[in-house]
């Protein structure tokens, strides 16, 4: 088998297994729930930590996320969402809720910008899903600075105001960058 085909086969199998474990979790299967946690907690924790920027808070949020997963897994439909997308949406939502609930003043997030700005590593690209590759292709079609802002918004959970301040542009400008980029992404992904 061609290495790339083989890799894709492995990845698809892993994804199907995870989807199956989530479905079982929805039926109350604790072993499956544990397997979901083992397979995904490091990734979700990385995602949450970037947004919360504080380990203790991020661990609290991670706990909330998996308690939610346990109770809401019944609603997961493998035909409609990939398991990682479904889990990541819960994780980002909880993390953003948490940082929106705290005072906007204390958010020194400079360190987080490095990774968000970085282009995906060449090695890592091999592990990407087809959806991710398509999204990257579409992000590449945007103005580089706009694409960078979309990534920063996604990984840091920043508001329009905070992004505008970071980039040194008026809020109105930031809104139009992001809105235009989102519409272009949608068109590109649907094309």
């Amino acid at each position: 088998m061609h290495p790339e085909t083989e890799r894709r086969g492995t990845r698809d199998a892993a994804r199907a297994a995870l989807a199956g474990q989530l479905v079982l979790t929805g039926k109350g299967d604790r072993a499956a729930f544990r397997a979901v946690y083992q397979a995904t907690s490091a990734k979700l924790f990385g995602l949450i930590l970037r947004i919360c920027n504080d380990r203790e808070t991020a661990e609290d949020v991670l706990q909330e996320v998996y308690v939610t997963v346990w109770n809401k897994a019944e609603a997961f439909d493998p035909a409609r969402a990939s398991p990682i997308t479904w889990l990541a949406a819960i994780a980002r939502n909880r993390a953003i809720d948490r940082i929106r609930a705290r005072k906007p003043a204390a958010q020194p997030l400079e360190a987080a910008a490095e990774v968000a700005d970085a282009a995906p590593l060449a090695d890592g690209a091999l592990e990407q899903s087809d959806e991710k590759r398509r999204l990257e292709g579409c992000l590449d079609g945007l103005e580089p600075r706009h694409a960078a802002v979309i990534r920063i918004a996604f990984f840091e959970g920043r508001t329009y105001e905070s992004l505008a301040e970071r980039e040194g542009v008026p809020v109105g400008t930031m809104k139009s960058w992001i809105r235009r980029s989102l519409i272009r992404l949608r068109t590109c992904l649907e094309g």
Partner: protein
Amino acid sequence: MSDPRDEARDLNAAEHVLGVEDADARAASQARLRNDPAFAADVEAWEARLGPLAEDAPAEAPGAHVWTRIEQATGDNVIAALPRPAAKPVASGKGVNFWRGWAMAASAVAAAALVGVFMLTTPKMAPAPHHMVAKVMGMDGKPDVVVSYTTGTKNLMLTPVGDMPPKGMTPRMWLMRKDGSVMLVGDVDMAHPERKQLNPAMADEVAHAKGVMISLEEAGRQPGRKPSGPMVAKGMFSLV
């Protein structure tokens, strides 16, 4: 996708998923998610579009205690056995303590009461920090809220997992004390998880409580010293 798209709604969904809304706009979108199925469908579509970016998140191992807490918070072992018939009124004549009261420094009156508490229940050994969890179950056997509390950090965390309350009703949470009395915690927002750092008096109450219960009250009704509406859920604390 031939149906005409509502552009404003779709953009709202995209911004919500990207996470660029401020707290107010975000709350508005969350309310809309519950009431507007077309908006919810747009949000789901955007989660599918942008979600793959999460693959770039660096993996980072959380502490091992996190899984222990999750197991406790989701396990069946914390479900309450049927408790006493009804909670008795609280003995104390203190004012109502809502969430903000819990999180803020104790008032002079409460501080005075606290001195009393300390004098009555003198120095048990200071316990090592531990983690308490109560899974608050509705009468249908489904969980409504998971309450967890860490004595070391005095952090109380509420994770709502149940359905939204009926219109015009508010779920109100009460601490169940060991003597059978109850103490008001506050209204529960079933839409958002909450975390509060408790002041010492409240921390002490929680550390010695049996569990929590939830009554369903008419929205806007001032709380008394005990629930006016029916009790709809309860759960006992267990130690982690």
